[in-house]
């Protein structure tokens, strides 16, 4: 290995928590982490939420939240033979930006909305490099060109909201590399972006790193991305390093059970095992052999249709000026059929109308036109009273499990409420029993009945949301990005659960996701949406193997880990 630019030794970070239960609970966010970032290479820090990967990065930059975080003695962070932990705030500020810089996850909230991007770039250049106004502007335009912003002469005066999410992230990267840092720390730089944009940003980061011979510390939860960009991988869990090594070694011959589990729990694209392996399987030591049993997916001709959607549209109107109105078509003439007991996957990038489709079908937002026939009755033309009996038969699981449960209700109350409304269960006692039954089914322990949402993890909350739908025994369940906000290992568990429930209750799913691998694994049929319209719909296997539409092809090409699609070839 060549000389190391940054070496972290035995880093320990404690957080003090004021959660109201114990006077001062301490969590050990990082417990003795050691790794090196060699010159001119990329090190990926991989871990799921709570693994301490971001805390480690913040510790390097000296950006830990002051009063609550404490770096324990014995820790050491050496950058070019200089210990960073003892530096004064002034010395750290000089180092940040000039020598070490950072790209954050959310470009939207990292850019100041009231200044043009050029202004923000020029400020950096003036402050750290002492450029004068004219020179700084010229340099800013150069930087924007380097990060691939089209027409940088014009865009330099654009405000953040005038740029797309991908372009905003490009501007953030331009700011980060403005002072030619030797080390770039990228904290989940692509997580908030659409999959095709994600790939462009990764390529950009890869090329920039090579061209400028920086070192990069790339933080992500997605092991799939790592293969494309990293030279070294550090796998973290619960504040500890589980495994580190060269990227080829991690992918071809992982040593640690957790690493193996992370690699295995992603749904494969080429096949469809009955169950996805979950982390617990691996940690228990019982390494599951390759599950050879395959689930058959796909809809054959004579399948019974439960929901038939015809020319469904949803328009929004914006007022422009005093009198003019602008129309935005969130959903334009969408028609499809959902087969009974089958899963229809819906894929598309943000803004393509996937969620509007779900909300319109649920009557949560009024449709502008079209019909949705459920057993021959048009759901959309019913009065609220007529719709009540149908409400329980078509249900939805939302994306964000932190937002979709009322924080003031216990899990029990959340489950009992729909049963009370729809008169399910003879009396309260019967309803309690049904709830407990369902909680067992979705894998929640009995005491959870009396707990509030804030006491559960994200995966458990999503289980509650699923159980809430199950109380009404729906025929159709819409999963709107239901697993997208969760860690991959938790995703695998929930996907298994959803499949089990489908087997048991014969529900039909409309499975909405931007994650192509997950949709492929879950769906019988797949529908690709773009700008509110359905561009292609076919059996899942057929569409992935042989996409007809150019947009579908483009979308599928951006799937990470698809061999040929790898950027520079860290892994061949």
């Amino acid at each position, binding site marked *: 290995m060549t000389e190391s630019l940054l070496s972290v030794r035995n880093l320990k970070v404690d957080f003090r928590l004021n959660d109201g239960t114990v006077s001062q609970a301490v969590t050990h966010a990082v417990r003795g982490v050691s790794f090196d970032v060699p010159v001119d290479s990329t090190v990926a820090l991989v871990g799921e939420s709570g693994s301490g990967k971001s805390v480690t990065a913040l510790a390097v930059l000296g950006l830990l939240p002051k009063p609550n975080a404490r770096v324990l003695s014995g820790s050491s962070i050496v950058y070019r033979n200089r210990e960073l932990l003892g530096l004064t705030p002034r010395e750290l500020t000089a180092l940040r930006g000039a020598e070490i810089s950072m790209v954050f996850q959310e470009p939207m909230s990292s850019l100041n909305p009231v200044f043009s991007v050029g202004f923000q770039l020029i400020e950096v250049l003036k402050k750290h490099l002492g450029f004068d106004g004219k020179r700084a502007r010229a340099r800013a335009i150069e930087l924007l060109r380097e990060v691939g912003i089209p027409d940088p002469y014009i865009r330099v005066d654009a405000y953040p909201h005038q740029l797309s999410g991908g372009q905003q992230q490009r501007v953030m990267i331009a700011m980060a590399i403005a002072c030619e840092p030797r080390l770039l720390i990228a904290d989940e730089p692509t997580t908030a972006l659409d999959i095709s944009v994600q790939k462009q940003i990764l390529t950009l980061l890869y090329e920039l790193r090579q061209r400028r011979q920086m070192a990069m510390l790339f933080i992500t939860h997605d092991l799939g991305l790592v293969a494309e960009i990293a030279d070294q991988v550090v796998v973290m869990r619960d504040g500890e390093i589980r495994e580190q090594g060269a990227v080829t070694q991690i992918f071809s011959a992982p040593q640690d059970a957790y690493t193996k589990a992370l690699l295995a729990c992603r749904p494969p694209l080429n096949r469809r095992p009955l169950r996805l392996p979950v982390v617990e399987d691996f940690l228990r030591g019982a390494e599951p052999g390759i599950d050879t049993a395959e689930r058959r997916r796909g809809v054959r001709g004579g399948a019974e249709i439960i929901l038939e959607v015809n020319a469904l549209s949803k328009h929004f109107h914006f007022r422009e000026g005093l009198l003019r109105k602008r129309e935005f078509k969130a959903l334009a003439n969408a028609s499809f059929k959902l087969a009974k007991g089958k899963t229809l996957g819906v894929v598309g990038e943000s803004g393509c109308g996937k969620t509007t489709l779900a909300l319109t079908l649920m009557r*949560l937002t009024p449709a502008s036109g079209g019909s949705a026939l459920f057993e021959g009755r048009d759901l959309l033309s019913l009065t609220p009273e007529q719709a009540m009996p149908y*409400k*329980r038969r078509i249900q939805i699981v939302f994306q964000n499990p932190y937002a*979709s449960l009322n924080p*003031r209700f216990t899990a029990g109350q959340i489950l009992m409420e729909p049963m009370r409304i729809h008169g399910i269960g003879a009396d309260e006692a019967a309803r309690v029993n049904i709830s407990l039954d369902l909680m067992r089914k979705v894998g929640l322990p009995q*005491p959870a009945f009396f707990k509030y949402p804030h006491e559960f993890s994200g995966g458990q909350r999503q289980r509650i949301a699923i159980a809430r739908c199950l109380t009404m025994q729906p025929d159709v369940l819409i999963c709107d990005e239901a697993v997208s906000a969760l860690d991959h290992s938790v995703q695998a568990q929930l996907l298994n659960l959803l499949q089990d429930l489908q087997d048991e209750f014969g529900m039909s799913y409309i499975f909405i996701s931007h994650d192509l691998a997950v949709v492929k694994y879950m769906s019988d049929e797949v529908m690709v949406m773009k700008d509110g319209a359905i561009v292609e719909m076919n059996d899942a296997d057929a569409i992935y193997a042989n996409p007809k539409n150019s947009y579908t092809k483009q979308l599928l090409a951006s799937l990470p880990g698809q061999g040929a699609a790898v950027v520079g070839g860290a892994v061949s």
Partner: protein
Amino acid sequence: MSAVMTHETSPGLWALAWRRLRRDRVGMVSLVVVCAYLVVVAAAALGWIAADWPREVGVNYAPPGFAGADAPPPQGSLTPLPTAAAADEPGIVDPLADVLAELRKGLAAAPDAQARAATLPLGGDKWGRDVLKKVVKGTETSLVVGMVAALLAVLIGTVLGAYAGYYGGRMDDFLNWIYSVFTSIPYLLLVLAIAAVLNQKGTLTVILILGLTGWTGIFRLVRAEYLKHRTREYVLAADAIGTSNAQRMFAHIFPNVSHVVLVQLSLHVVLFIKSEVILSFLGFGVGVETVSWGSMLNESQSELILGKWWQLAAATTAMAVLVTAFSLFTDALRDVLDPRLK
């Protein structure tokens, strides 16, 4: 029955907030002070203490006990009434001569029959009424006015705010229009107008005036909260399972905005206590048959010229302590209820 299964009741958000509050020393001290005031008010309302505040137990302007009694006035006369000689001046007929003679006779006939006290614990007012009892009774009036008016204002503001924010559209436009009308009229003018319409003085009138004019700020805040919450996923989820609009507004959203409402309630109690003082001071307050801090301050206006400071001191101290404690408690409440802290 499954109701018998054993479980640990887990702390809800309110319980967690209470735990945080218990660790907030300033918050707890102010809570204790506020509670002490409430106990006094309850006792006064039930007639256990200070029921006889109108009795004239001391000499006029009896000084507080710790300041020592005044030197006995000459000739035992308590009030320096104009002497008869003044009325005997040639050419001037005193139209009140008869009345004065009557008064003089009355005073002479009852030379402190009930042996009026020369000093009182916190002094006496113009008629020798016990200032301590007046303060206690005044606390009752002021606090009751403050709390009931705040409840009324919060009720109006919350309900209207909930409807405006939840439904939006025309409902929102209409309620905002009402809001604008109320806020565009100068405050005192509005108070006078409502006072004129109600056409009688009294505690109830003050409560109505304060409640009917004070809801506007709460309306804006609650409306904003409902606007924010109505598109949250948990509300959509509640819609999806078939709850009615009213259930969503009050069973689902309200508990999640109640911390805002509670802080506003607490804030408005303080605000209205001060407003009542101002109204009474200006003469739009409670009637003469009741005493409040405001009416005490009003009386002490003329007393101060005579150097009788104790009624002013007692009323202001009582008010300052309560307002400070209540404000500090409100701050603590806001901190512990902040949902970001959960």
